């Protein structure tokens, strides 16, 4: 099976993936990430076979139908999966089903890449905080948009290019070998634990120690009711009710004294 692209084709597809995954094209890239369709179309244009590319992409879309990312984490990256699977399918004259078999493991690896991006973005925070403290709007804008974009391009372009140029099946083999390795375990653990920081910062910013019991109440409610999969809106309604009750009772006490 002949599975190579020209250097230019591989590079253009890699740049497209970097544009989508860096999110530099705005919020609407959400649907470019969640859905394989736009990536499939671009691959079709780059490879000069739009019709077959769309047919293969439509089959991949059915696999990823209904994908949503609560809190921003997607269990797979359909766009990356498509960027690898569609060229392989077109060059190898594979069936759409064969393309799906390649897409699924690559998509899984893609989700680690996307999360690794969150980690690398941390490097943009230091200059960002510096410019904010200086009240430098220009520098702040640049550090918020420029640095993460460069990071994403350096991360995605070489990887996707190598994967395409040297053959996607190799990549899907590598994926299944390392998904159980220590590297992935460490990445998962760090990714799973880092949210603690942002939450601790906000608790500090809210700054009312006497109200901390409400944090514990909520925490143990969410742990205890985890299996019930209670919707965020319901929790927010609970929180609002607690807030109203708190204000009601404390203001009553104040007016009693007066």
């Amino acid at each position: 099976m002949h599975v190579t692209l020209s250097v230019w084709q591989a590079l253009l597809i890699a740049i497209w993936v970097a544009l989508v995954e860096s999110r530099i094209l705005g919020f609407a890239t959400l649907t470019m990430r969640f859905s394989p369709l736009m990536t499939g179309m671009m691959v079709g244009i780059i490879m000069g076979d739009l019709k077959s590319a769309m047919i293969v992409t439509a089959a991949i879309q059915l696999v990823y139908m209904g994908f949503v990312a609560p809190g921003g984490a997607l269990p797979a990256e359909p766009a990356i999966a498509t960027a690898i699977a569609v060229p392989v399918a077109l060059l190898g004259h594979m069936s759409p089903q064969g393309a799906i078999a390649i897409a699924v493991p690559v998509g899984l690896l893609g989700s680690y890449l996307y999360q690794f991006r969150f980690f690398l973005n941390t490097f943009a925070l230091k200059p960002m905080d510096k410019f904010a403290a200086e009240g430098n709007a220009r520098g702040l804008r640049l550090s918020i948009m420029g640095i993460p974009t460069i990071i994403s391009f350096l991360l995605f372009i070489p990887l996707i290019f190598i994967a395409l140029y040297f053959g996607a099946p190799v990549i899907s083999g590598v994926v299944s070998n390392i998904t159980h390795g220590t590297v992935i375990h460490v990445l998962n653990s760090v990714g799973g634990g880092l949210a603690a920081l942002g939450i601790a910062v906000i608790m500090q910013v809210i700054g009312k120690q006497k109200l901390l019991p409400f944090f514990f109440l909520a925490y143990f409610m969410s742990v205890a009711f985890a299996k019930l999969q209670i919707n965020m809106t319901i929790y927010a309604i609970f929180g609002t009710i607690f807030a109203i009750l708190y204000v009601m009772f404390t203001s009553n006490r104040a007016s009693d004294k007066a």
Partner: protein
Amino acid sequence: MSEINQAAQSDVESQTDEPKRIPQPDKITNKDLMKSWFGWWWANEVNHTFDRMLAPAFCFGLIPALKKLYKDHDELAKAFQRHLLFFNTQATWGGGTLTGVTISLEEARAKAMANGEQPISEDMINNTKVGLMGPLAGIGDSIDSGTVQYIFIAIFLPFAQKGNFLGALLPFLCFAIATFTYGYYFTKLGYSLGRAAAKEIMTGGRMAGIIDGLGVLGLYMMGILAGQYINIKSYFKFTINDKTFDIQQILNTILPGILPLTAVLLLYLYFQKQGLKITRGLLYLTGALILLSIFYII
């Protein structure tokens, strides 16, 4: 770095907000709301990190509005800093609405400071954002990425199956135009709702009660987020005399969810003692997580 930390710390300390005179802010127009909404929409996920989430994008959107409101350099820097802390929500329902609400609150704060009145406190602004971001995200995620997106995909998928590129282009364009349009509507809605609320707060004399109430809601939502987002569990197992001890199972019998809670509380206490040194907190936490996970303790 020490400069940032000092600034961040003074941010936390100056919660009493002694009135300070600043120049009169410029009027916020629909054009400014569009600029801020577009800024948030564009930057949305670009600078996504684990510890700040989408705060940089939120701040990016507010920059033009804040520049019109705070002609005082120090106040502008403080406003930039408070919107970089931690923020995570959905783009249109959450981010659009909160962009509008936040601009209206910042406007009320800047006006009060210019007139020498008691301004809306930074806490108030922070707690409003934090209290509302979770619930709005819950609504927005299920509507935008869960429903609207797939309605368009489902309508046009037959085109793609026949090999027509419109099956890809049309769902994307429809989704982009629809979400951009109603997100801007939410921004304007949030702005007018926030203005009404700000007026009520300023004249009603119930500021302390409202700040406490928002503090309750904010801390409550943080508790929920901590329970749902932080994923730390122990993989440590050892065997003595053929009996295997699974640490996570033992922890579950003592107190489920103890590890994520410990992580948050340690960081909270660290900030309490050392001031809000976010960057160092991040380094320590990452180091600890890497060390513990390399040895499969977590």
